[in-house]
């Protein structure tokens, strides 16, 4: 079976959807040269009318995409760097995502916002290192964070076909992941449906994005002493609460591993909801970034600020000790 890499999966999803639906087009910076590797071959295949090179005008072209969507197209907008999503937060959260509401259902904005390089990159500095995904869920923007190439393909396809704005985060740390696949088996993955990557009985680890692979490695390492279930929500918003509840019904213990900031982060919401509504027999734990930003310039400083396998293993042991 052929290998599919993470970015190739994104590239394949883009190509397949553009082939399938002439309303789909992509715009962004340096997309002709495929700087992020997502658009390799697409300019040649679909031409400059559908692979749109933009000037450095993120706010302008994000609103522009909203307009094109209002007129019936299905834009994909690519941003190279996470902080650009802060620049266009207004355009996504306050404009595009409110059109359905403000029009009373008359209009729809099927735009996909693609962030192929989310998260920390060694020594690229404070402005290239963020994981701003919880912000979008907070404002009700559909958000996905695929962990594997197959899920990256399936979630991106679904995002493009969805009638609402969807933000797709592709974590840099997951780019190295490859999978053996049968291309014909690649299929859309529904939004809001999580995936149990590994079944277990003692503790549920909710992990998102590249953290899924860390969680699987830790689960394997601890397999002789602890049975760890790894649950990947895949979609951050809307979250698969039923999937989480089913897992906790079995394990009753919860650790969340999340590469976003701690304060009002994704892990905070998962813990709060689990504490209120689900079966927990011990206090849950979080393994996240600190409250605030990762510094970005010096790997020795930055690495301990990001959730890692050692921290997760400690948290799993602690949650197993605890009881209510």
């Amino acid at each position: 079976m052929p290998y599919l890499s993470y970015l190739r999966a994104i590239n394949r999803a883009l190509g397949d959807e553009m082939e399938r639906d002439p309303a789909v087009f992509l715009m962004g910076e340096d997309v002709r040269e495929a700087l992020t590797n997502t658009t390799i071959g697409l300019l040649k295949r679909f031409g400059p009318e559908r692979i749109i090179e933009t000037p450095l005008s993120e706010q302008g072209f994000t609103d522009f995409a909203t307009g094109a969507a209002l007129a019936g197209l299905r834009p994909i907008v690519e941003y190279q760097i996470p902080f650009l999503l802060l620049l266009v937060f207004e355009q996504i959260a306050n404009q595009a995502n409110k059109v359905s509401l403000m029009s009373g259902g008359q209009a729809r904005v099927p735009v996909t916002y693609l962030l192929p390089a989310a998260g920390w990159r060694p020594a690229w500095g404070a402005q290239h290192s963020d994981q701003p995904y919880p912000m979008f869920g907070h404002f009700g923007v559909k958000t996905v964070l695929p962990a594997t190439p197959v899920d990256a393909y399936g979630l991106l396809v679904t995002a493009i076909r969805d009638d609402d704005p969807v933000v797709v985060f592709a974590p840099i740390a997951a780019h190295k992941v490859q999978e053996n696949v049968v291309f014909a088996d690649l299929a859309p993955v529904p939004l809001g449906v999580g995936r149990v990557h590994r079944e277990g009985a003692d503790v549920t680890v909710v992990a998102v994005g590249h953290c899924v692979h860390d969680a699987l490695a830790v689960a394997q390492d601890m397999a002789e002493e602890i049975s760890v279930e790894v649950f990947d929500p895949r979609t951050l918003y809307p979250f698969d609460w039923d999937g989480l509840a089913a897992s906790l019904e079995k394990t009753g213990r919860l650790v969340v591993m999340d590469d976003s900031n701690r304060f009002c982060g994704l892990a905070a919401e998962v813990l709060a909801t689990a504490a209120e509504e689900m079966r927990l027999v011990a206090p849950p734990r979080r393994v996240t970034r600190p409250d605030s930003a990762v510094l970005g310039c010096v790997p020795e400083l930055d690495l301990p600020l990001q959730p890692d396998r050692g921290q997760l293993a400690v948290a799993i042991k602690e949650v197993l000790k605890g009881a209510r």
Partner: protein
Amino acid sequence: MDEQAGAAEQAGAAGQPESLQEDLYRTIALIRRFEERSIELVRSGDIVSGIHPCIGQEAVAAGIGAALRRDDVMMANHRGHGHLLAKGTDPGRLFAEMMGRATGIAHGRGGSFHPSDLSVNVYGSTGTVGHGAPMAAGVAWALARSGTDRIAISIFGDGAVNQGALLESFNLASLWQVPAVFVCENNLYATTLPVQDAVAGSITGRAEAFGIPAASHDGMDPEVVLEATAGAVARARSGGGPSFLEFKTYRYEGHHTFELTAGLHYRDPEEVAQWRSRDPLELAGSRIPADRRKQIDEEVEIVIDTASRFALDSPRLDPAEGLDYLYSSGLRLRSGVSGG
């Protein structure tokens, strides 16, 4: 309905076709009386939001409305009632929208500030000043791609011309030669800020810097507005790219009806009086026979009475529907109460 349908048709002007002047007067009168009635409905508490009245600026909306086809797309703004009415929106459903009634164009979810009416191709009214311009550029680009000769128009105020996203959209629109018309209604104030304290250089110079043909016109004369807009629309329709029009106009009322009680002093009453002496309602009225004017006034009064009655008699919204329409896909959300 045919593609030229507009306020004249709304008014039920059956019988002999109206002259252009009569049509423009009817639209101006309709907007004027709509806004005056709206202010009464604000005072009575039926319109809770208050409104951003466009009284004084009606000639711009009327002229633009007459220059557009029904299938052309408009992005309006927070002072947008006149734009929608000139595009052909039903006044009763607009009143209902502003009152938060079930029969509103957007079931009350757009309100006075963010109305849209897809049935007449008004795609929205953004509250973030100036952001309708990049959206209109995107609409225009998409329309051109689809091979139609429809165009998109964005209407914004002088406050918008210092917004980055708007200036970015001028660049994109010119670069890609999209069939868009950008219209600045310069009413001299961004809320309380006078234009001379806000705009370095000139308003038209902003568009010219991006290679967009730009001109400034009298916005109190609907025929001037119509002629200028028709030229820009024809240019866009024929593949000639975007244009920019500045219309100098004035709002007689405050930025928002909160000024009825706020006691602000940013405008000289003499300045207001001076602009009132060039009232577009009087200017347009003076160009048609007195008996026709009287007849149109009576017809408009009936339209406004019928429309406001329709809205006042319309059902209120069910509080259980507060999360409706948030997603086109019908996604339902958790409530704000645990276990709810």
